């Protein structure tokens, strides 16, 4: 065995031991149907636990508390998934999108202020979509008008996941209404405690309310909170959005490949269906697709680390994962049958396949629609990946 392989094996043992002593045995049951405040407290506690172990932000640069090799991160996520650890849901945007944006385009002051705050639990939300700007995000209408050393923001944001608990917002707003739509947008860091800001939760198809509307009326954002140059926000957002896809997808793929598939097999077993050749065939097909997804994610992480990721690679992974999740949870709902319809809540802090199959299935549209719908991903794959002609521009 080479030293690199031995080192990884040792790390795997370390994570495994840690999980055995830190992942609460009964957390799924305890977190099913809990009030919002309890869920938030549980998320904060788990984030602090991971931080204490040094594993909350392994993907950040070493100087900010990360610096873990891609190979080790793969091991970390595999073991967390294998031991069915709670997921970091509340901090997801903070440690991934916000951090990537700050690291890629932030000033030294912005990084110093927020990266350490994120480690201390600062929660971020994305303020991108709007009622009239979904797939055509660049047509967004929220305006930010310069007024001396500040901007005055007016408009409405939609689908801001977790906005009710957020301290800060990654905000896209139009700063030059006269410019072509992609050239008049700026990117801001907005304090969610600013006056003029109203957050209203929207109940989603599953019955949860983590999506929010954000109403902005004359909200003041200091000009120092611009991220990247004025009117170049669209380009900054494009550059930072895909950057995190590899790792976040790796984590989800490992979840699917561990507890997710295990529960599906258990559900089939409980209903005495493992001997049914059609059921066995579909299970084996899903396991094969999951194996493909996991390999795809590991490969993307390695190539991203080496700077060799292609322009549509992240879209291929997102599209394949979303639709696989939908097929898998759909099959779970089918297997669960009528008894499955009795399951009315799923554990908070769990993955997208929680074992509450019908709700998981309904919830899978949260993957095929947000973050660029599957249709938009196919456009990106065809245009940027295969070089097919662009849609005629509107």
């Amino acid at each position: 065995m080479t030293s690199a392989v031995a080192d990884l094996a040792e790390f795997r043992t370390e994570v495994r031991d840690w999980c055995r002593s830190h992942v609460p045995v009964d957390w799924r049951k305890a977190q099913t149907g809990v009030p919002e405040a309890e869920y938030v407290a549980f998320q904060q506690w788990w984030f602090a636990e991971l931080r204490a172990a040094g594993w909350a932000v392994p993907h950040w640069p070493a100087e900010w508390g990360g610096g873990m090799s891609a190979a080790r991160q793969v091991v970390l996520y595999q073991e967390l998934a294998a031991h069915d650890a709670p997921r970091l849901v509340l901090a997801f945007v903070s440690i991934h999108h916000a951090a990537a944006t700050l690291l890629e385009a932030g000033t030294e002051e912005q990084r110093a202020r927020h990266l350490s705050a994120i480690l201390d639990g600062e929660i971020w939300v994305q303020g991108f979509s709007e009622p009239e700007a979904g797939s055509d995000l660049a047509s967004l209408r929220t305006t930010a008008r310069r007024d001396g050393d500040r901007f005055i923001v007016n408009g409405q944001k939609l689908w801001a996941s977790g906005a009710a608990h957020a301290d800060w917002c990654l905000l896209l707003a139009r700063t030059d209404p006269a410019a072509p739509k992609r050239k008049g947008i700026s990117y801001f860091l907005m304090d969610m405690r600013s006056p003029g800001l109203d957050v209203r939760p929207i109940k989603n198809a599953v019955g949860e309310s983590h999506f929010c509307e954000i109403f902005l009326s004359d909200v003041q954002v200091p000009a120092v909170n611009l991220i990247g140059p004025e009117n170049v926000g669209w380009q900054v957002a494009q550059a930072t959005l895909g950057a995190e896809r590899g790792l976040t997808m790796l984590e989800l793929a490992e979840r699917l490949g561990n507890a997710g598939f295990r529960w599906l097999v258990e559900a089939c077993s409980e209903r005495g269906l493992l001997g049914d050749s059609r059921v066995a065939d579909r299970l084996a097909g899903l396991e094969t697709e999951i194996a493909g997804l996991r390999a795809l994610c590991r490969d993307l992480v390695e190539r991203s680390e080496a700077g060799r990721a292609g322009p549509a690679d992240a879209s291929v992974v997102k599209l394949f994962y979303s639709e696989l999740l939908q097929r898998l949870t759909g099959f779970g709902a089918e297997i669960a049958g009528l008894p499955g319809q009795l399951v009315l809540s799923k554990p908070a802090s769990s993955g997208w396949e929680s074992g509450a199959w019908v709700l998981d299935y309904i919830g899978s549209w949260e993957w095929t629609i947000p973050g660029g719908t599957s249709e938009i991903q196919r456009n990106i794959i065809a245009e940027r990946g295969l070089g097919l002609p662009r849609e005629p521009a509107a």
Partner: protein
Amino acid sequence: MTISSASELAELAEAREELRAVARDLLGKTRPPAAPAWSVLASSGWLGLEVPAALDGADATFAEVAVIAEELGRAVACVPYLGAAILGTGTLRELEPVQDTDDLLRQAAAGLALPVAVLSDGTPTTSPATADGVPFWLAKTPGGGVRLHGQAAFVPDAAKASSLLVLARSNDDGAPVIVVTDPRAPGVSIASQPVVDETRQLAQVTVEGAEIAPAAICRFAEDPRAAVRRLQDRAAVAVACDSLGVAEAMLDATVSYAKVREQFGRPIGSFQAVKHACADMLVKVTVSRQLITTAVTALAAAAPSSASSASASSAATTVAAMAKSYASDAAVEVAGKAMQLHGGIGYTWESGIHRYLKRASLNRALFGSPESHRRRLSTRYR
């Protein structure tokens, strides 16, 4: 061969990409289907990739063979590479080395002999999982001699064989052995089975009491059942590689066509119906490639000479089943979509798309259907 460092791995990967570039160039010299002379393949070194250097081979692994298999699929090539260089040589490498098999490996690498493996009975319903599916057997005659009996259908490249490497049950202990059989010997008959895919040559091999010299009965070097399992995995993954090549060729052809073919005053590739279909083809090809890479790596590591464990070998069987079931299905869908997106021209004989669709369809059925491989996977759930 054991790999010890990341830089060695990188060097090997680079060498494989060179091999791929050379193969694509050579096979792309004519319009598909490519039909290069066997002597050209020999002088390119493709026939001796897995043959030890001491026997004038390249001392490479299944990973290099997989590159050639994929490129042959991409060119829908008409060469007996599967039956001879992949399965024949692979079978010989599993045997206890003796002078005769060494000679055969040396000649095979040079392109002077064409030893073709006869490994399964070709019954479509037989799960490749059953090592009991050994289709031939040896029996003692009253006179003290030994005779070979049995039949196998759909044997790739048997009609061109200079010798047949027949998987048979030993008359001593019932263990699987390989019987090196002369295809022209009395009692041996080979009947071509023309199939829809004209780029492949399959045949039915029937042996009715052919006399076998003791020296022609070769024992496996290690556990014979594990060896048979490895050979069946190898066959399945080799076909999966071929399917990947077919699918890649069809994706490339379709994308090129969609960029230039205009209807309604626009390239058809600008329409979402076409563009989304192409995106789905790319996803299928990409996932196939990942599963195949995993399987090829596992099989290369599970080679008989390596110090691999039984669990590594069973893991190889699992990923081989995944690669074959997914990639061989995907190639049919991709080639079918390619024919659709080429429109009327794609349905013509002249366009050649049909060759890829037919080869993909044959590949899907060869060495275990996707269903049979998934059935094998599903036995692990209980």
